[in-house]
């Protein structure tokens, strides 16, 4: 089952303060401009783009947190517009915006979110064993989230976002702010998910992460998807220099040109 993004667009109203900050008179900003791509099971789709390009907005639309102005996303046959509850039960979403309450322990939150996903207690225990073992959370399972290290917080967030064993996994900048060791354990896990035939979408601004992990890549700049192809094709076209291609695309966009 694939995840199909179909011509989604999203425009935000700019407040006076935001207009001043962006030095613009325009009252609206198009964060995502007619984006389409498809992610397949057993593959990692990398959404690459500079900060503020529209990656997070696109992922928020896919995960039903916000609605697109136009277009639709079909997640395993369910539409984000019409069947948002179905979509939520199929996806695991991780972003720095989704936080865990400091007062609770990983144990409590894992059970809480498991129940909200409609899982029975024995199934929750089973999943907890797998994920807590995988991320080494067990020694900290009864420590309040507020007292955990940044890395352990992120690992707990990942475990909780996957409590219901979703088929579609959307991770927004999952290695941000993590040390090399923790970042490595996260990227390794993404490869495991891929092997489990999960459909994975990963957003990042780190080129090396895309090169190492992704099977397909979409490059998003200024709300527009400038490239969407298999990693092999993109590398071929860029003479194995993704960085060069990336800067070329940014330059083109700044000049108002379009890639043919």
């Amino acid at each position, binding site marked *: 089952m694939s995840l199909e993004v179909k011509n989604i667009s999203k425009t935000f109203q700019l407040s006076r303060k935001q207009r001043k900050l962006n030095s613009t008179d325009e009252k609206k900003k198009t964060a995502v401009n007619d984006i389409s791509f498809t992610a397949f099971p057993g593959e990692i789709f990398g959404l690459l783009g500079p900060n503020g390009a529209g990656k997070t907005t696109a992922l928020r639309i896919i*995960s*039903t*947190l*916000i*609605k697109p102005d136009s277009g639709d996303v079909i997640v395993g046959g369910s539409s984000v517009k019409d069947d948002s*509850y*179905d979509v*939520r*039960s199929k996806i695991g*979403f991780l972003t720095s*915006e*989704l*936080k*865990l*309450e*400091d*007062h*609770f322990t990983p144990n*409590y939150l894992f059970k*809480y*979110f498991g*129940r*909200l*996903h*409609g899982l029975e207690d024995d199934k929750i225990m089973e999943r907890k064993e797998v994920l807590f073992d995988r991320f080494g959370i067990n020694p900290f399972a009864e420590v309040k989230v507020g007292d955990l290290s940044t890395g352990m917080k992120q690992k707990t967030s990942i475990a*909780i976002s996957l409590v219901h064993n979703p088929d579609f996994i959307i991770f927004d900048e999952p290695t941000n702010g993590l040390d090399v060791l923790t970042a490595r354990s996260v990227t390794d896990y993404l490869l495991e998910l891929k092997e489990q035939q999960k459909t994975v979408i990963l957003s990042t601004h780190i080129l090396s992460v895309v090169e190492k992990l992704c099977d397909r890549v979409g490059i998003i700049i200024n709300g527009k998807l400038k490239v969407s192809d298999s990693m092999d094709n993109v590398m071929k076209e860029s003479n194995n220099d993704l960085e060069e291609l990336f800067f070329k695309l940014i330059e083109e966009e700044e000049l108002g040109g379009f890639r043919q």
Partner: protein
Amino acid sequence: MKNILTIFKKEFYRVMSDRRLIFTAIILPGLAIYLMYSILGNAATGMETDIDSHKMIIYTENMPTEFRNVVNLQFDDNPEFHDISESTFDEVSLMIKDGDVDIFLSFEENFMDRLDEYEQAGYSLPNIQTYYNNSERYSSASLNKVNQFINAFMFMEGLERYGEAYTILSMNADTDGFPTSIEYENKGIGQGFAMLLPMLIVMFLFSGAMSIGPDSIAGEKERGTIATLLITPVKRSQIAIGKVFSLSLISLMSATSSFIGVMFSIGNLVNMGDAAGDINPLDIYTITDFLMLFAVILGTVMVVVGLISVISAYAKSIKEAGMLIMPFYFISIFVGISTMFSGEASQSLVSYLIPIYSSVNMIIAILTFEVVGTHFLIMVLSSLGYLVLLIFVLNKLFQSEKIMFSK
């Protein structure tokens, strides 16, 4: 239903597993009220006892022996009498000013003769002039006491002059000056409660809900934890109901704590130093009265929590939620105060449709034993209606990406 219960339990556990929150939201309100009112009541009683134990120093001029006899025979105060001849008027005035003497009584010369003659043509009643110091509490209190002496003296003189008939004319023929009907007495006490309790109850409910509501919703928005909840396949309406019900239970616990505080200190509060002793509400009201009161409090809690939840969902931060709730808090206190001195519940049906105002009036009706069944029903049902409406609005706010993710 399962999801509502899961959210309800988590929100409840959030407060119950935090010792500081248990103390500030549940124990402190009752404890603070109990201590505050007890100290207030004890201070008033203490002042009264102090005044009672003070030996009055009275300077007199031309005081008839009959007056002194009445004071000595009928009162236990045993004041220290001094004649003005021991000093001068100016000196006594100065002593009253300094608080060394409490009061100066100046009877007209030949007071008793003048009293005998006053009914004859050309004569008038003799005067008693009193000099005291309003800024000295012993002196102020002695004025009241001296008035009692004078009244007793007048009564005895009247009795001597007109016989038994005078007592019928001058006093309530039915009683010895106090109501004898138990019901009547209870209603009087009930009106005393009705003056203070409605405002206090509404204040407690509001402050209880205010101490946790903004953190549970605006706080989750501010900390970014609400999005984690919104990404689960749970209906927004279930989140809204789970949160409102849990907050209601905690607010109810907070209000109950305050209520217990009031009940334990109400004797001191109502009596304010009156020596009549403690008033126990359990002796006056029946189980039905308490159940009705509970239903009204529950209905009010739901409306207040619903309102605070909606405001908290709309606000961007806990601070903003607190600011936006304040005007509603003041309005509710104003509603409580506005009915404070009427002592009676409104008879208009419409009054029982207005949130908070209906609660205040219904509490008064219960406390003064004047509950109208229709009014009670309308109050409870309209509260439920408002709760449904507020949950509907909260659900809409949870669905609004503009509200939920505004920075």
